[in-house]
């Protein structure tokens, strides 16, 4: 049964790729992508339910669906669904009718590789899946073929390939360390690495972990390895930005979480958590400072992604049930909220014909409905109640205050205030400043571009008011099973 669900989960985007590239009809590829995404979302939730009582291992233990992976699959499927609906409305504005099938083919392929990364049980294959996400998404980033987007694509692939090669080195060193305990040839599964880790020579384990952390941290956009992120997220088409930010970063965080699980209970466990906290708080601070002085609307969103990936790293680093559950809840909420933000930014960019915040004024007059949603989303992403990010950030903060890293928790609060003021100041200007003389905006909202904003906003509000018991149950189980639970 789980097997059938998995087959559907992966067949749907593959069918999307095949249809888009084979038939080469723009309309067909749009709808095929939307349907594939909805199927994935519909399958991902029962899949999560299937593995609550323990992981399911398939294909000679090359594949393993565990609760953590299934959770990330849910987050990715949500963003895939929202952004494929939004893409229908957005991509038609670009006047690239002939290349749309190619776009949707790459789009579904990108989703496929990210989903695959969540279920591979082999550390080497995981690395390859993450590498493939880079290769496919590079062409999505450069899709608009302007000087800026090509530059962003180039920087993206160079920085991320360089970074991710460190993760490969770390993986091989992990394997080498394990070969002293498990013999020269063994299956490179997460469980095998975890079994051997306590007996590995500690300095070797330490170097391996740091390499892996920096490697997958590059892909996740942790500062100071985040330099590709603002470029790639701001220059790609808005639905792709949402996928990069809401889905891809999660897949990379999954790598960091899995390796934290590998070294749990070893002599470097404590150091590993400190390193993750260090990267987390550094990303948070850097992002906060760049948010305050930002001038581009999508770069603002991109730095907000760096900020939130920092928050997730903080949660994982603080550890314990609260920290891990908070981080994973934050992952879901950030996926929803950041999609909403990029959709709003895409609408505004197209309507005003500029990427600069200073050129966007009087949004509420242009977009009474979707503008309101965007503004509420901004309040949510700045961390204010009653939206879901408030709950998850508060949980992570509780984990931090009660644990070893009180200094990080204090810094977190201080810069949370900086982000709140900085982020909302830009929105105040865009929504309430006097609009200078400007031509009437060229594009207005349509159902395709407003509906996904509603679909992101409503769960955000609900999850902010009510943390469903089922989700709390899943998250605590993950933190006990996978990450070792309370410390």
């Amino acid at each position, binding site marked *: 049964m789980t097997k059938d669900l998995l087959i559907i989960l992966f067949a749907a985007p593959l069918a999307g790729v095949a249809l888009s590239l084979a038939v080469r009809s723009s309309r067909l590829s749009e709808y095929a992508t939307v349907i594939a995404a909805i199927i994935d979302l519909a399958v991902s939730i029962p899949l999560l339910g299937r593995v609550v009582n323990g992981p399911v291992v398939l294909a000679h233990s090359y594949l393993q669906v565990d609760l953590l992976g299934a959770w990330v699959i849910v987050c990715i499927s949500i963003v895939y669904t929202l952004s494929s609906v939004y893409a229908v409305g957005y991509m038609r504005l670009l006047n690239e009718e002939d290349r749309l099938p190619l776009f949707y083919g790459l789009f579904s392929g990108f989703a496929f590789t990210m989903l695959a990364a969540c279920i591979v049980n082999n550390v080497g294959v995981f690395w*390859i899946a993450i590498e493939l996400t880079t290769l496919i998404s*590079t062409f999505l980033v450069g899709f608009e073929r302007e*000087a800026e987007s090509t530059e962003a694509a180039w920087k993206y692939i160079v920085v991320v390939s*360089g970074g991710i090669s460190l993760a*490969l080195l770390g993986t091989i060193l992990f394997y080498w360390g394990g070969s002293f305990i498990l*013999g020269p040839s063994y299956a490179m599964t997460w469980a095998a690495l975890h079994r051997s880790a306590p007996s590995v*020579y500690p300095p070797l384990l330490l170097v391996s972990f740091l390499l892996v952390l920096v490697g997958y941290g590059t892909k996740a956009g942790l500062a100071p390895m985040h330099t590709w992120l603002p470029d790639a997220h*701001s*220059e790609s088409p808005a639905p792709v930005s949402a996928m990069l930010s809401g889905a891809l970063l999660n897949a990379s965080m999954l790598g960091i979480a899995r390796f934290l699980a590998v070294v749990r209970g070893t002599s470097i466990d404590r150091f590993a958590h400190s390193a993750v906290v260090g990267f987390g708080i550094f990303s948070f601070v850097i992002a906060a400072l760049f948010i305050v002085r930002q001038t581009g609307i999508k770069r603002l969103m991109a730095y907000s992604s760096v900020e939130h990936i920092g928050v997730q790293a903080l949660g994982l680093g603080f550890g314990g049930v609260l920290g891990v559950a908070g981080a994973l809840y934050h992952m879901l909420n950030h996926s929803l909220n950041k999609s909403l933000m990029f959709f709003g930014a895409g609408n505004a960019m197209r309507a005003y014909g500029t990427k600069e915040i200073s050129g966007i004024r009087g949004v509420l007059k242009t977009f009474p409905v979707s503008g309101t949603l965007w503004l509420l989303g901004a309040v949510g992403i700045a961390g204010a109640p009653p939206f879901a990010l408030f709950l998850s950030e508060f949980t992570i903060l509780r984990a931090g205050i009660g644990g070893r890293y009180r200094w990080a928790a204090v810094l977190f609060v201080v810069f949370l205030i900086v982000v709140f003021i900085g982020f909302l100041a830009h929105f105040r200007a865009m929504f309430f400043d006097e609009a200078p003389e400007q031509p009437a905006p060229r594009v207005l909202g349509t159902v395709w571009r407003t509906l996904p904003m509603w679909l992101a906003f409503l769960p955000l509000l609900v999850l902010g008011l009510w943390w469903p018991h089922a989700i709390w149950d899943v998250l605590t189980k993950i933190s006990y099973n996978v990450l070792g639970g309370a410390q």
Partner: protein
Amino acid sequence: MFLAHVNSLQASIFSSLAVLSLLLTFVMLGSHWLRNYVYAFAAQSWLIAALSASVGYFAGYPELYVIAVLTALFRGLVLPYLLMRIIARLNVKRELHALLQPSSSLVLGALLVMFAFVIANHMNWQPLLSAHVVVLALTIMLSMKFLGFLMLTVRDEAVSQILGLLVLENGIFLGSQILVPGMPLLIEIVILFDLLIVVACFGMLVRFLVVHAGTTSSRQLNRLVG
């Protein structure tokens, strides 16, 4: 662990092949001519193929012969061919504005190798002869990482950056042949193919760079900042 029973002949074969590969990295670092990079890279790949074969022979892993053939074929022939095509299309023969002179990058590279040695030495706990090979392999693995990143930093032609990334990968591949010869065959083959796709993607991107950005020098890719 076959390294624990390595004899002095085997140790010297592995060491010399590894050291030669490192020297070829310095050749890349010390030259400004793009063609030289590619030749050095090809030669390095052949050395790594020889290393795979000799490890396969001495340690009794016949599947490493397959890896050796594939390495020679892909890294030693196909990749250099693809790179040469990119260079020919771009009509750039040499690195024009390297940030550092070859001499200073060589000195910097030497310092990085020392740093790599210090780290590698800390990561080792085995005694005697096997330790020599292990520390050497780790040192070369890490120094090729550092040198690759150095090349990425100080060079700004697109082709040099691709080669820098390939040096990063070669370092890992070289080290893994000595340290973990028993790594599953599937993984190694997939990584080889992956590299091919990477270079193909880079090739396409370079074409986009020429057409849409009008330059292949990262020095001029400076529209996006802040």
